[in-house]
């Protein structure tokens, strides 16, 4: 399987999808958060995009670490520390992992574990993890069943979307939305939505790049 796509390509795709869903995402964090999630992510993305040509030239471990450090020092907020920790950890893991499909899934798994650890959270708490974990489970299943890259990416997209949608009826127990208690039910979590948009955009790029 050929999975080499440039980081800059991914960044452009992510920037585009967030632009297209900007109002929706902003409103999600306004409804049950504090309204800054879109701007936080975009600040991080802008910083990464400025670095994209040098990121393209780096080896995967360095690139992932650099992405993590950049997100950590530009985003702020809950999502900044979580995504920052995720990528820094992925960078560390990548150093000792073969970057084939299974290896990339392992690297992603390490990233998701870092989010769980940093956020002291798990699936079912109405956070980005409700996207990230189902996506991981789907990827791991694809590795086990030797899916084609196309199949793997499509299942990933489905799993991420289902996970994202599942946050709608959840009672939040982590992050700002938890303070609203029952009032937060009926709203999708902003971080779950952006994670899903990002994963889906990357998957599209992988599919197109085949």
């Amino acid at each position, binding site marked *: 399987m050929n999975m080499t796509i440039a980081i800059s390509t991914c960044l452009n795709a992510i920037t585009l999808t967030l632009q297209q869903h900007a109002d929706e995402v902003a409103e999600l964090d306004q409804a049950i958060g504090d*309204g800054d999630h879109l701007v936080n992510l975009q*600040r991080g993305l802008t910083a990464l995009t400025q670095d994209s040509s040098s990121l393209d030239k780096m080896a995967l471990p360095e690139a992932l670490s650099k992405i993590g450090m950049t997100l950590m020092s530009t*985003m702020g907020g809950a999502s900044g520390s979580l995504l920052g*920790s995720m990528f820094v950890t992925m960078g560390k893991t990548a150093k000792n992992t073969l970057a084939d499909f299974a290896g990339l899934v392992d690297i992603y798994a390490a990233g998701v574990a870092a989010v769980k650890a940093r956020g002291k959270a798990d699936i079912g708490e109405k956070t980005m993890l409700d996207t990230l974990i189902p996506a991981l489970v789907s990827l791991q299943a694809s590795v086990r069943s030797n899916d084609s890259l196309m199949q793997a990416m499509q299942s990933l997209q489905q799993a991420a979307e289902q996970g994202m949608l599942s946050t709608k009826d959840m009672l939040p127990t982590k992050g700002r939305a938890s303070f609203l208690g029952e009032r937060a039910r009926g709203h999708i979590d902003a971080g779950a939505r952006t994670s899903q948009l990002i994963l889906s955009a990357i998957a599209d790029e992988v599919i197109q790049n085949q």
Partner: protein
Amino acid sequence: MKKLLNQPDTLLTESLQGFAIAHADIVIAETSPRFVRRKHIANHPKVALVSGGGAGHEPLHAGFVGQGMLDAACPGQVFTSPTPDQMLAAAESVENGAGVLFIVKNYAGDVMNFEIAAEMLEAENATVLVADDVSLPADHSTGRRGVAGTLIVEKIVGAAAEQGRDLAACKALGEKVCRQTASMGLALSSCTVPEVGKPTFTIADNEVEMGVGIHGERGRDIVPMASAETLVQQLTETIDRDLSPQAGQKILLHINGLGATPLMELYLVFDIAAKYWQQKGIEIHRSLVGNYTTSLDMIGCSVTVTLLDEELIALWDAPVHTAALRWGC
């Protein structure tokens, strides 16, 4: 959105520049990464107090940097916790041999970013987590939020650090103040985050958001608009249930405005809250009324009570010289 600004994304930088010029006698503002620190670092080892959090709560925290209170503060973007590199740089710039105490409001973003900074900091350090918002149950899944009680922790621990208490003692003192402090707030309006450009939520004329935090978010419940007496009663009763002060107890009563509430109304709120406590035989021993922990241009207020003893009174009264709080010097 009608605001005095040039561009939403330059507001913070420009505002901080203004702050630095206005208070050049006591603070220095660094820009990359961004933090504010005392101009004069003690020439003997002294526990360094570092706080920070999203912008939009001014004067918290930068307004509390100075003699007898914080050594440094890291402002994040509006309602967005600052980043670990800010905290690290701030801590390193003021640490002078007695370690660093981080004072952190309990929000996922602040907690996690300060955690990362603490892991990275080589100097000895500890953290006090402020979680004074009793609109949430004590066993809330993430713990309670940190709100207007934060400045009381910063003032009292700041005085102790100034007097030479060590890191462990400062942390223990901070936790004592946290245990003895309870706050609750309400909002009559939303606020508008400059970068978003429209109110975070809408609220009907006959509704009040009860149990709000300080990030312009909705409260725990919507309650019907009512007289100040009725509304403030709900705040004080919840605080009373939490702290259960006994008759004869001395308290610090702090009425905080969320940004757009006239001082006249804040003193009315003070009057109602003070009488509530006085009727229970509680003594209003110290008071603080004003806009100290704000949510941009939100209309609303919070009530904070700290149970005082001789130690806390002496530390509260100790000299402080910051942009927003000053006495005794």
